[in-house]
Structures are given as structure tokens and as C-alpha cells.
């Protein structure tokens, strides 16, 4: 293992674990202002969408709305399954299968 990679993993670990650990330890004693709590409630939806849309619309950094964009095409059956079942496993499986199919066909 390269030393730089090790430090990178340690850095990623610290910034990931602190937000997991601190609220459970601290918030059993103090409480946050309600506006902060309400703002935090929207974070999961906001961050997932902020991650997802660029991956679908900007593959490789440039805007692509054509049939060559297999990620965008694969997202259609994937969204249908996600909305219908709310099942993570089925959604991921559908995504992988359709993505592979579109790579072969197109």
C-alpha cells in the first residue's frame, strides 16, 4: 500500500466518521436550533440529486442529450423501478442490466 493512499484513506475516514459519531454522542445532551434541524432534513434529497444529475447529463464533463448517452437511457427503467418498488437491490440490478444492454445494442 502506497503511503499517500493510506493518508488519503485516513483523511476520508476522519471526515466521514465525525459526522456519524458526534451527533449521537453530543445531542443526547444538547439540542440544535430548529431551523438547523429543518435545513438538515433536506440534505439527503438535495445531496443525492446534486450527485446524480451531473452523472446522467454530463458524462465526461460535456452536456450529452443524445442516444449515445447510455447512462441517461439506463436511468429511465431504473427510475421506473425505483419509484414503483422503492427497493435498492432491484433498482441497482435493473440499472446494471439495462446499462449493459444499451452498451451492446447502441
Amino acid at each position, binding site marked *: *500500500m*502506497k503511503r*499517500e*493512499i*493510506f*493518508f*488519503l*484513506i*485516513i*483523511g*476520508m*475516514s476522519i*471526515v*466521514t466518521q465525525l*459526522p*456519524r*459519531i*458526534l*451527533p*449521537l*454522542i453530543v*445531542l*443526547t445532551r444538547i439540542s*440544535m436550533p430548529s431551523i438547523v434541524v*429543518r435545513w*438538515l432534513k*433536506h*440534505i439527503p*434529497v*438535495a*445531496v*443525492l*440529486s*446534486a*450527485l*446524480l*444529475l*451531473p*452523472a446522467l447529463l454530463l458524462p465526461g*464533463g460535456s452536456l450529452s442529450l443524445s442516444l449515445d448517452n447510455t*447512462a441517461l437511457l439506463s*436511468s429511465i427503467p*431504473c*427510475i421506473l423501478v*425505483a*419509484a414503483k418498488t*422503492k*427497493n*435498492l*437491490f432491484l*433498482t*441497482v440490478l435493473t*440499472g*446494471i*442490466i*439495462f*446499462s*449493459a444492454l444499451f*452498451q*451492446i445494442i447502441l
Partner: protein
Amino acid sequence: MNKEFIKGIKTAIPVTLGYLPIGLAFGILASQQGLSPVDIFFMSLLVYAGSAQFIASAMLASGSAYITIIVTTFLINLRHLLMSASMSPYLKHISSPLLTLISIGITDETYAAGYAETATGKASPYFYLGLYGLSHIIWIMSTVLGSIVGSHIANPEKWGLDFALSAMFIGLLFMQIKDRKDIFVAISSGVLSVALAYFMKNNFNIITATIVAAFIGVCLEK
């Protein structure tokens, strides 16, 4: 065997079924992006966050600075803060050292799967040991397995694996969307993120879009 531990194991089963394809996909892609099985083992053990691991290895392959990767990881995983905070009223009966251990296992999936039990206010540490422990072990195993077979797979994108992360985001997003406000927050965050990425060509699009869209969500409540 402890009854609560068994209950945790049972609750973990759908979670581990979701982890398997994502973990394998991550391991395969990350091994092609230059990470070794040992790197991947430590990343899955110490970071344990699927989306951040995917993005970090892609950023590593494209030559991003380490500090940018760490800041992006922080922002992507900041959502765990809310999950951890929302569990705190129900776990006052568990000691701080045990809570520290439990909180390391909080992911989108384990949090969602265990929430019903958490909300009873009587969840046993053994329940979390079963649910969080098994889920974490399966995540580590599937990512390391993926990295071992990864070097034998020539074009992982041909197998649709590069889409696994987007598919996971879609699944998690739809698990989170409960009303029209959520849809509005999702659309505004996504569009803003695309616009910022397109015009500014930097990695701050995710942070900026998330912060602004969550504020829009707060404003919509009134």
C-alpha cells in the same frame, strides 16, 4: 444466541442484498482505477460509504488533489450527521463508547432498515451489532472480492457496472422522496448542480447545490 442479535441479522439481509452488486461494482472499477485489494479493504473498513468511495476512486484516477477528494468526501457524507442526530433521542440508554461503535455503522441503508427498531426507544446494542456488523462485513467482502476479480475483467463498462453508482443514487433518492417539497428540492438541487458543473468546471457544484437546495426546502415549509 442472543435474540436481539438474531433480529439484527435478519434486518441486515435486504441491506446486504443491496450491497453485493454495488460493492462488487465498486471493487471492479476501483481496481481498474489503480487501487489495490489492500487499499480497498482499508477504505471499506475505515470509510464505509459507498457513494464517497466510488467518487473518491474516480477522482483519484482523474488526478484530483487529495484535499479536494477529502473535502468532497466530507460533503457527500455530511448527510450522516442528520441520520445520527435523528437517532439520538432514542438511544439515551446506551453508553457513549457503545454509541461511538454503533454510529460508525450508520449508512443510508442500515439507518433506513433499522429505523423502526431504533424508534421504539428500546433498541438493544446487540441489535445494532447484528445489523450494522453483518452489513459492514458484507460491504468489505464484496468490495475486496470485486477488486480481486476486477483485474480479470477487460471492460467493466461493457457489463453496465459503471452505472451501478448512479443506479444506487436513483434508488436512495426515491427512498427519500416523500412529498412534493422533496421533489422540488431534488429538481432544484440537480439542475443547479449540473449548471454549476457545466459552467464552472469544478467540484464545488455538489456542495453549493446541496446547501442552496436545502435552504429552498426550508423556505417551502412556510
